[in-house]
């Protein structure tokens, strides 16, 4: 059986996310409850979470979460990491043995910062340096896989139902201002932990429900800009596109939305001239990053979260609001289970992003 990266596997999914605009921290119980209610949207072949604001004491360090198949590769990989980073702390990620989660790899966590001399010699900016090191590990060391590499955030994922994955990772012990979750329904059973979602690069994390039709067009285009789509998943390619457009091109999340879920020409044609010119420009220049086919995604990033549907809204996605909390999930039930008394519930239109940030910050 081929695993992610060797074959493209379509899958159905459930996603959920919750975000405190005030930056109030809460633990992972709620997000587990939320994703659990959508149990039937997953099939036990992958689940995971991204959590933001969970490492306040190490917030200046990149938190690498790594799967190792064995200790040999761990050793090899750690030598690589040592050559490139100052590792301030490394430890096994705490887990809870439960019968539903089996065959776990070695799961390790490192808080790192690039070695200043190495960084300088590389002539790269710090983030690019980190990204390249992550790619090196993931492509060079067979059996090692960095699945989380942002600051003050972390991805927790495994093969299993998402609620079991949450309990396995003891998510109730983490406190953050934002959690996203993903339950997966792949149409085959490779059962590789790295293939579970969220997919993350630096502090960008993506959970996604859908199966995009533009995949290979997007992949072959983003790969020209230094990315290597090792997993052949939609989530991965979307994460890279978001990284490229935001970090490298400096587009805002609103602008990113109008690239990957660009307004239809019939809409653009009705815009005022200067707005039209900008929309046309984005579609012309970044046309290869238009994502078509059904998707609903939650993109987590430092200090914010974006929810976005494909422009035809071919996947369900509901938003809810109460006080400073924003809830977004594939189904309204996943919001009601954790917050029955919502002030506002709505279904964002296709292609219209919902972007939330901490204390109204820029995104």
């Amino acid at each position, binding site marked *: 059986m081929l695993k992610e990266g060797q074959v493209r596997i*379509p899958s159905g999914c459930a996603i959920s996310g919750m975000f405190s605009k005030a930056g109030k921290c809460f633990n992972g119980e709620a997000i587990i409850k939320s994703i659990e209610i959508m149990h039937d949207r997953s099939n036990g072949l992958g689940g995971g979470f991204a959590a933001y604001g969970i490492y306040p004491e190490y917030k200046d360090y990149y938190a690498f979460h790594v799967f190792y198949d064995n200790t040999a590769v761990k050793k090899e990989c750690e030598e690589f990491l040592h050559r490139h980073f100052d590792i301030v702390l490394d430890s096994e990620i705490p887990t809870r043995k439960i019968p539903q989660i089996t065959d776990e790899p070695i799961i390790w966590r490192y808080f790192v910062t690039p070695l200043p001399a190495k960084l300088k010699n590389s002539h790269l900016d710090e983030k690019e340096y980190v990204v390249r090191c992550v790619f090196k590990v993931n492509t060079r060391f067979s059996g090692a896989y960095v699945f989380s590499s942002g600051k003050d955030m972390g991805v927790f994922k495994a093969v299993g139902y998402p609620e079991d994955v949450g309990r396995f990772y003891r998510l109730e012990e983490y406190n953050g201002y934002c959690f996203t979750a993903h339950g997966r329904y792949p149409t085959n059973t490779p059962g590789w932990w790295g293939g579970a979602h969220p997919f993350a690069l630096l502090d960008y994390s993506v959970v996604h429900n859908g199966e995009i039709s533009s995949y290979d067009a997007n992949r072959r285009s983003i790969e020209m800009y230094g990315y290597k789509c090792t997993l052949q998943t939609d989530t991965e390619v979307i994460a890279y596109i978001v990284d490229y457009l935001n970090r490298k091109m400096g587009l805002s999340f609103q602008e990113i939305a109008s690239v990957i879920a660009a307004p239809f*020409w019939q809409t653009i044609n009705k815009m005022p001239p200067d707005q039209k010119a900008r929309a046309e420009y984005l579609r012309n*220049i970044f046309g290869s990053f238009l994502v078509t086919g059904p998707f609903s995604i939650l993109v987590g990033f430092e200090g914010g979260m974006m929810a976005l549907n494909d422009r035809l809204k071919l996947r369900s996605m509901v938003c809810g609001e109460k006080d400073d909390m924003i809830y977004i999930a594939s189904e309204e039930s996943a919001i009601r289970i954790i917050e029955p008394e919502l002030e506002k519930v709505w279904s964002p239109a296709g292609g219209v992003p919902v972007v939330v940030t901490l204390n109204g910050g820029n995104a």
Partner: protein
Amino acid sequence: MGINYIVPEYRVVRDPDRCIGCRVCERQCANEVHSFVPQTGKMAADDAKCVNCHRCVSLCPTGALRIVKNEDTFKINANWSNKLMQEIYRQADSGGVLLSSMGNPEPYPIYFDKILLNASQVTNPSIDPLREPMETRTFLGAKTKKIQRDKDGKIIPNASPYLELKTPIMFSAMSYGSISYNAHESLARAATELGIYYNTGEGGLHDDFYQYGANTIVQVASGRFGVHADYLDTAAAIEIKMGQGAKPGIGGHLPGTKIVGDISRTRMIPEGSDAISPAPHHDIYSIEDLRQLVFSLKEATNYQKPVIVKIAAVHNVAAIASGIARSGADIIAIDGYRGGTGAAPTRIRDNVGIPIELALAAVDQRLRDEGIRDNVSIVVGGSCRCSTDVFKAIALGADACYIGTAALLALGCHLCRSCHAGKCNWGIATQRPDLVKRLNPDIGYKRLVNLVEAWTHEIKEMMGGMGINSIESLRGNRLMLRGVGLNEKELEILGIKHAGE
């Protein structure tokens, strides 16, 4: 008259019960195949003159005519085919180079026909183009990614000069001279109505067609015919023609007898002088020379227009394309070996160059590997015969397709491949006024519009079927393709999997 070695290729079969002697066939055949015999009161035909253009068949009001392959044959020989033997007789007779027209007709593999398309089932919905927007708008030009913002932080649209197409199909270069005034008018008007572009070829731009400049690509080829400041200024884009799929490495030759009147004026050469396009551009002997010409033309047009470089698909096309992508050109046009021509040496046409499908796949991948695919758009031609050919080309990585032969077919061409004789009965590849008038542009342009609209509808259907609602999501989306009956190497070059994988 010595011995006649040549056996007529076709036979005119006339149904005596249906022929009413209206003599339409006689009046319509520029090759003078048909004649009325007063003694018998019946029509007769001279098979030897028939090129099988089907004009008579199409116009015969009673359906009395059929043109059939002459069953007369030399002794069957798998090595020495009838065709080869006749060619030898012809050359032994004339001492000349064999001439042919239109595209390579030989039975080489057609890769488009060995590629199948995907469609959505269950996990991803197909999209109904009758219900949802289905977008085919295409931009051609460099996709330079330099975000600039004004003082309010708003993006400044600073795209390089580009062409905007309503659908990813353009009419490929066919010169006024090789085709008729009315054919050009049909193309120009159709391109304008369709929101696409047609291409002057190397024949200059007739004064009457400056009005269609916004939908015109002007060509600068090795003969530089008809090139002047207004010509460049009027156009939407400028194409430097380095080569042509039908005859890579070969120049062009329009005999002086055809350089009369408007043709002479439009090409800016004296009446009666031969129009010789040299095989190479004599100011381009290297890629750096090409870069100079690209920038000369950009300088001449104030950096307002995209520059296209057109090359024939030859063996090292990917490397050549890589060079062009770094030359400042905005668009690369690649012409496959099946591309048409008004006249080419038969041996060249039938043996030089490579299939466009392989060339395209190689170029697209090479440019991506080098990270310069966004420097240029890729336009391919050389036998895009139907909407699926266009569709597959785009999925392989093309931005748009040039159609030439298909456009001429829409205008009535029956691929008799006798353009070089100048007696086109359909009024396309001729300058004889009585034949030119057979192509009424009012009809011709509408047929072209119909064709491209029909293809566009089909493209939309196929896009919708695979859950794609904008053409850019198809571009280079090779996962949507599968090969059938292709070997590993072919699949590797095409960058696609075999059906079933």
